[in-house]
């Protein structure tokens, strides 16, 4: 057990090292001149040279790499060239919005996946099963920004059921006093139910758009697992010993079917990280995704670069946590070979 954990941790450190090297090569060492990217195509050679010096591009390559990663891990992420603020404060300001959206989306994704997978497997609904599989196919094949667009056209433009792309709250609601940076929870703490409801309303469409592809993946996984496990002999035994069908299902089939979905954790995080860049702009959501989207448009190098490295580190860490959890929960994988996603 200890050896497995140690091996996974070492592997993850190696992966993070590899990722920083790769990011360094892509962003710094390849022909596209980062200094030129920063100052823009119209700048004088003098300006390019001074930026080169400033970000250390005239130093030896190993020194450059060392500066690159030491600055990153110290949290010294440089300054946005678009508005002069430090990247860490820009990201800090917007972290709450992105986390709130991601948590909300994750919650509805998992809830819907479990409910629908149960519906089609436990309740034997072949037609619903076909529909669900169709939706899962489409959901996996549709880019999140297109889902966002369709949701907005249907539920905002045509039906007027939900608010349009106006960010986290309606115009009439004021942000609640900051405690957790999550508007829903802060509003509840402050006792403002109108604000709470407004923030929930504003979360629904972006939440669905962000979570649909993860939902499609997880629901297919869960459905396949449930079907497979229901054929296992131990369930026949459980039924034979006199357990009611639902009890056998709940106690023996569900927990086992859930395990493999845990490995989808890394995938879901990856979808959410990339998805936030793709959909936040569509909803004018003031999160990290729209920050990065704007930074790409403005060629704001420091922001994009930080986001990319942060994404890689988070991705590796989540995959590590998933693997370790898996080893803790499932005794069968406490042997040295641990599958990575």
């Amino acid at each position: 057990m200890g050896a497995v954990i140690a091996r996974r941790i070492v592997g993850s450190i190696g992966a993070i090292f590899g990722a920083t090297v790769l990011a360094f090569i892509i962003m710094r060492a390849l022909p596209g001149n980062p200094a030129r990217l920063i100052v823009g195509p119209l700048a004088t050679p003098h300006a390019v040279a001074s930026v080169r010096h400033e970000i250390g591009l005239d130093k030896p390559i190993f020194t450059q790499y060392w500066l690159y990663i030491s600055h990153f891990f110290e949290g010294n992420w440089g300054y946005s060239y678009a508005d002069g603020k430090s990247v860490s404060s820009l990201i800090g300001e917007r972290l709450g919005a992105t986390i709130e959206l991601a948590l909300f989306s994750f919650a509805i994704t998992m809830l819907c996946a479990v409910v629908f997978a149960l519906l089609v497997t436990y309740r034997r609904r072949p037609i619903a099963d076909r529909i669900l599989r169709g939706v899962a196919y489409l959901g996996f094949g549709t880019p999140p920004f297109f889902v966002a667009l369709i949701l907005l056209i249907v539920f905002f433009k045509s039906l007027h059921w939900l608010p349009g792309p106006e960010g986290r709250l309606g115009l009439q609601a004021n942000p609640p006093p900051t405690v957790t940076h999550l508007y829903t929870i802060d509003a509840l703490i402050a006792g403002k139910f109108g604000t709470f409801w407004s923030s929930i309303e504003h979360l629904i469409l972006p939440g669905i758009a962000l979570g649909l592809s993860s939902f499609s993946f997880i629901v297919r996984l869960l459905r396949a697992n449930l079907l497979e496990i229901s054929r296992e002999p131990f369930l026949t035994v459980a039924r034979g010993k006199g357990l009611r069908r639902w009890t056998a299902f709940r106690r023996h089939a569900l927990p086992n079917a859930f395990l493999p979905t845990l490995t989808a954790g890394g995938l879901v995080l990856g979808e959410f990280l990339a998805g936030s860049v793709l959909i936040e702009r569509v909803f004018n959501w003031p999160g990290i995704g729209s920050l990065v989207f704007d930074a790409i448009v403005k060629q704001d190098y420091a922001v994009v670069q930080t986001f990319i490295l942060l994404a890689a580190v988070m991705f590796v860490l989540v995959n590590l946590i998933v693997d370790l959890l898996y080893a803790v929960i499932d005794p069968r994988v406490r042997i040295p070979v641990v599958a990575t996603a």
Partner: protein
Amino acid sequence: MSSGPLILGAEEASSLRPESPLEPSGASVADRARRATRTVIADRKIAVPLGVIVLLVLFAIFVPIFWTYGPNKQDLINSLDAPSFTHPMGTDQLGRDVFARVADGARISLIVATIVTVAGALVGGLIGLLAGTIGGISDGVMMRLMDAILAFPPLILAMAVTVGLGIGLNTAAIGVALVSVPWYARLLRSEALRIRSLPFIEASYAIGMKRSRVISRHVIPHMLPVLFIQMAAAFGYAVLGLASLSFVGLGAQVPTPEWGAMITEGLSYSLTGQWWISIFPGVGLLVTVTAASMLSDRMRDLLDPRGEYARL
């Protein structure tokens, strides 16, 4: 196989298998390839995604040739027209015919995604083959490199590549191809390891075949079904990835009629009522990607030597 005590509504696994499963070995390579092709073509369920892709290809080839409007022909008097007989998909804010642009976008997406898929398969397949057959230090080094690529969420690494190499459709294609490489490499490496341990490989060595000949005559042909399945899936991801990068502004630049870029352009008009500018390219994307993933899944049912493996 019984349907189990708890659950009905699951298809019997046997009904998903082809009538005559591919025999693992015994027939000649050409014979097996012919039989595999026949299995795929004769399959009724694969006709739908395959047909859709053929239609898309025809659409992408013939519409730009015969359609009266060019994809970048502006006509400001008739801008933002709703779909009609003259403009089946309407016109955009510059009066360009959306139908012509969607068709041209299909051409771009299909061509670039094909190049990306083939390039990724060649590089990744070669890495996987070398790692799986030669092994040793090269295996370790290459797989660590693949781990470094896999340490990034795929789309974000593709973004990084485009930012680093300079924005454009070509660099976006490089980014998307790079992201797909480790999937091929890992898959084919494990396939190579699996095949290498089969008895007939040992038998080939025993009758005195050289390693290069064993690899080219036995290992590679046995890897092909898995490679093709992966390529079909990767094709869908490539279309999706390219469109996503273009949507963010990293891929195709205006006025290129790339689907993702078209969706961005039409975004602000969608909520004022001119939905057709963004919706039609989006439908094109959805149809292409869904067809590719259905094709890949069905091919897996028919061809994957490992049986029902990972059929989600």
